[in-house]
């Protein structure tokens, strides 16, 4: 099944509480996706040319050794914030070079996200456990999207959990299944676009990011997705300043939106919205198939 949730805070003073509001939303979708969970949060934006890299290690990893080895390649000490198997590295060096270096020197590390705004967490385990493991309740930011996974298309591993990312400050979560992910891959791979897993959602994520890199804005890329991406889906996407929601033409996969003056909240089912402040007076609706719903921070 899978569950998706998203929250965009309109009232700036509520951004401190993003994680606290989000965790019950995520846990509310545990029955829809009990095997893995993930969350992408969009925080205060780093100044150019800084980038932050969310990193994950399957096994225990010595993050201090990464900090120590970085200056030899880049003549600067990076900032590293670690939490168990996950860390964020912040550096002002050229992103392609940093990524190449990380991949060559630490092939055991998985790069979860890159950007000036996005932080990403994903792991296997029950959603409540994953939320505890990375202290989702303490997260702050303008908007976040999260996912609970019931694996159908590919194995239960941390890298196949959602959100998926491509490029910078872009991520996507998916409830449903695509029927043409391999034909999408076969189109993108000759363009130099590298896939990290066999997961169908990764194809949608890389397709949309490729369209945006080619010059489409988010809305145009999504419309192209309606033409090219075949299957059942509710997609929730995040960029540095936007949250976007779409469903396929048959609307096989559910979604409910609750909007107030303070927030826009999205979930696969109302169960995940029930605890939100003043939700009883929210504008509540079900998104229509193949309609674009985009909110800006």
């Amino acid at each position, binding site marked *: 099944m899978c569950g998706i949730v998203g929250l965009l805070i309109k009232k700036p003073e509520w951004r401190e509480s993003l994680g606290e509001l989000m965790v019950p939303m995520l846990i509310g979708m545990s029955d829809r996706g009990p095997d893995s969970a993930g969350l992408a949060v969009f925080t205060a934006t780093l100044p150019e040319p800084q980038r932050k890299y969310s990193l994950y290690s399957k096994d225990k990893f010595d993050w201090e050794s990464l900090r120590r080895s970085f200056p030899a390649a880049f003549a600067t000490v990076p900032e590293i914030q670690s939490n168990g198997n996950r860390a964020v590295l912040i550096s002002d060096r050229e992103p392609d070079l940093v990524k190449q270096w990380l991949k060559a020197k630490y092939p055991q590390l998985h790069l979860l996200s890159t950007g000036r705004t996005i932080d990403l967490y994903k792991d296997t385990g029950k959603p409540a456990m994953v939320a505890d493991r990375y202290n989702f309740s303490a997260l702050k930011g303008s908007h976040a999207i999260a996912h609970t996974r019931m694996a159908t298309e590919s194995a239960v591993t941390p890298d196949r959990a959602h959100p998926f990312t491509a490029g910078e400050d872009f991520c996507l979560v998916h409830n449903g299944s695509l029927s043409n992910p391999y034909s999408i891959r076969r189109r993108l791979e000759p363009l130099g676009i590298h896939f990290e897993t066999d997961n169908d959602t990764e194809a949608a994520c890389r397709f949309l990011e490729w369209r945006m890199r080619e010059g489409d804005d988010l809305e145009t890329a999504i419309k192209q997705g309606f033409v090219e991406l075949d299957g059942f889906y509710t997609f929730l996407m995040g960029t540095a300043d936007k949250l976007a929601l779409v469903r396929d033409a*048959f609307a096989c996969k*559910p979604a*409910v939106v609750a909007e107030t003056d303070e927030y826009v909240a999205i979930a696969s089912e*109302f169960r995940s919205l*029930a605890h939100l402040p003043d939700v*009883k007076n929210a504008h509540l609706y*079900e998104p229509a198939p193949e309609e674009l719903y985009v909110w800006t921070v």
Partner: protein
Amino acid sequence: MDSLTASSTTTDSITFDLAQTSLREINHYLHHNLARGEKKIHILNPDGAHNIAVGLNAPVDVEILGHAGYYAASMNQLANVAIAGNVGTGVAENMMSGRVHVKGFASVSAGASAHGGLLIIDGDASLRCGISLKGADIVVGGSVGSFAAFMAQAGRIVVCGNAGEALGDSLYEAVIYVRGEIKSLGADAQIESMSEADYATVAELLAKAGFSYNPQDFKRVASAKQLYHWNADAVAGG
């Protein structure tokens, strides 16, 4: 009362709070413990829970005060269930008799395969409303999404708003009445002229549902029967 936690009881009504009492206990009560003669059951804080008041089989009034999740009041028989909120997938699915009234909007597959009874949705219904309908009546105050009444076999659907794509695709004997625009008709569905009996049917169903639209404003959609390929007479005649 057994071990149930009821917020309040009077001789003819009982209130349960889903924030205090498990859904399993409440549904068990509705199935097995109605002998005390309660006329009205209130259920508070549904908060989108699935399967509230499913499979009821007694002429009892149940009011759900808030939004319900999947399959609310499905497989209903005899009961009168009102939901003061929205519902998820499959409200009143496979209803046999009685009445289910959704005061908000309904998600997909509302009234799927319902054999009898009346389903009223004050707001919009999402896709596949009345799919495979087998004899129930459905009145939607708002609009219905695409594929409404897909393969509906018997029963009547009244849509006071608009209809989405492929309305009545592969209909059998069910009839749909639409007041607003129809985005497109499904395979084998056609718009037919309204007879006096049709006007009377629409008036009857609107009255039962509490809507005051003019029956003259409705169009009739039914099957052209071009997809019927069996020959019932051949079976009967041997």
